[in-house]
């Protein structure tokens, strides 16, 4: 699933796109960066969080996430946008809640049965 497809599915707004067409196959949803840092994944994954601070983008960079989706319509501070650009980490905002966004992405990725 590309970032563009995710944007459509989540009615999101892309704040920064690095222009790479990554096929994102997994989602890590957490507001606790400590939990994100223990994740071991081989597939390209995106970080879904309501934490709209610098550390969300930094953590995404450290664990090699393909991007960050901010849920609950969180708008990032200008500093966060700048950091995302610097680190070339795609950043998107969606009005959906974390639970809703997970269901939508899970279905689109064929991860939900029934």
């Amino acid at each position, binding site marked *: 699933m590309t970032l563009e497809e995710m944007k459509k599915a989540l009615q999101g707004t892309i704040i920064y796109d690095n222009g790479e067409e990554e096929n994102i196959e997994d989602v890590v949803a957490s507001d606790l960066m400590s939990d994100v840092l223990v994740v071991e994944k081989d597939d390209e994954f995106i970080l879904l969080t309501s934490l709209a601070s610098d550390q969300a983008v*930094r953590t995404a960079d450290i*664990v090699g996430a393909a991007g960050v989706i901010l849920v609950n319509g969180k708008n990032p501070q200008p500093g966060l946008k700048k950091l995302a650009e610097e680190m070339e980490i795609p950043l998107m905002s969606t009005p959906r809640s974390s639970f809703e966004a997970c269901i939508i992405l899970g279905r689109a990725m064929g991860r939900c049965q029934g």
Partner: protein
Amino acid sequence: MKRVPFDTSDSPSILLEMVHQLKIKDVMTGGVTTAEKSMSLRDIQNLMKKQGITGVPIMDGDRLLGLISMNDIIEALDNGYIEESAGEHMTRRPIVLEEDMPLSFAIEYLNKFPYRRFPVLSKEKMLVGIVTNRDIVNRLLLEAKNEIERLEENLHSHSADVPHGSLHREFITQRFNFERAGKASTEIKKILKKHGLPRKLIRRIAVAAYELEINQVVHSKGGKMLFVLNEERVEITAADTGPGIPDVEAALREGFSTANDWIRSLGFGAGMGLPNVKRVTDDFSITSSPQGTVVHAVIEIPPPEEQEEKKKTKEGEEHREDQ
């Protein structure tokens, strides 16, 4: 007048170097406005006002005769001789500096003599400029700024390659400085990427560095992160300046945390930091006292031909640990 609080023989060596290497001609203002001795003090006062200066050398052709300062003008106004000529009231044979003297002379002169400006002469005894304490302050601040920037650069990233082809970097962390938190780890990750290490290995090293860095920002008074990379391994030494971990064993248990709600609101403080560093590293040691905590973490870099194989084994181990 107050002394300049600077000893030109016994001060920090960088400052001494500055005041001895900089020459008077580097600091002085050239193209000085001068006046003839026949000019009235009133005209000199107007000249000062127009040019925004506080002292005018008085000349006889090419020869420096004296100096009229703002103080001389005030005296003249007070005592009613402002219409008289400069030649009658100037400070005769003023103390001069030579353009090739080191700046330290000017600082010494400011302490030795009751003047705030000194005319500057060339070797040929021609007037080439004037030095005021303001010139000295401006130039020294500029030099100090450049020098401190250079020192800070060295402090933040020791880029000197040491023998055996290993690479050293040192990073500073500050208590509760979340603006900077993660910068060291980002930098480390960049270096590893540049060295073309496998992605998974980079992730393990970056995670260890980031956890240690966040720990220093959140829990310590601040400290240093030392990063060493050579062909066989990466070593990260995180050393802070206190207050130490009262129960190290507990800190190594998953879920144990002393973080407050505020730290948790930033996405940290789940008590996973140190256990996670231990998990991703091949060698891990920690010592802690009220004077500070030192964590030493090592991640081995498998030789290129073994990288594929080793990666698989390591993942296997991790899966077992997870269960």
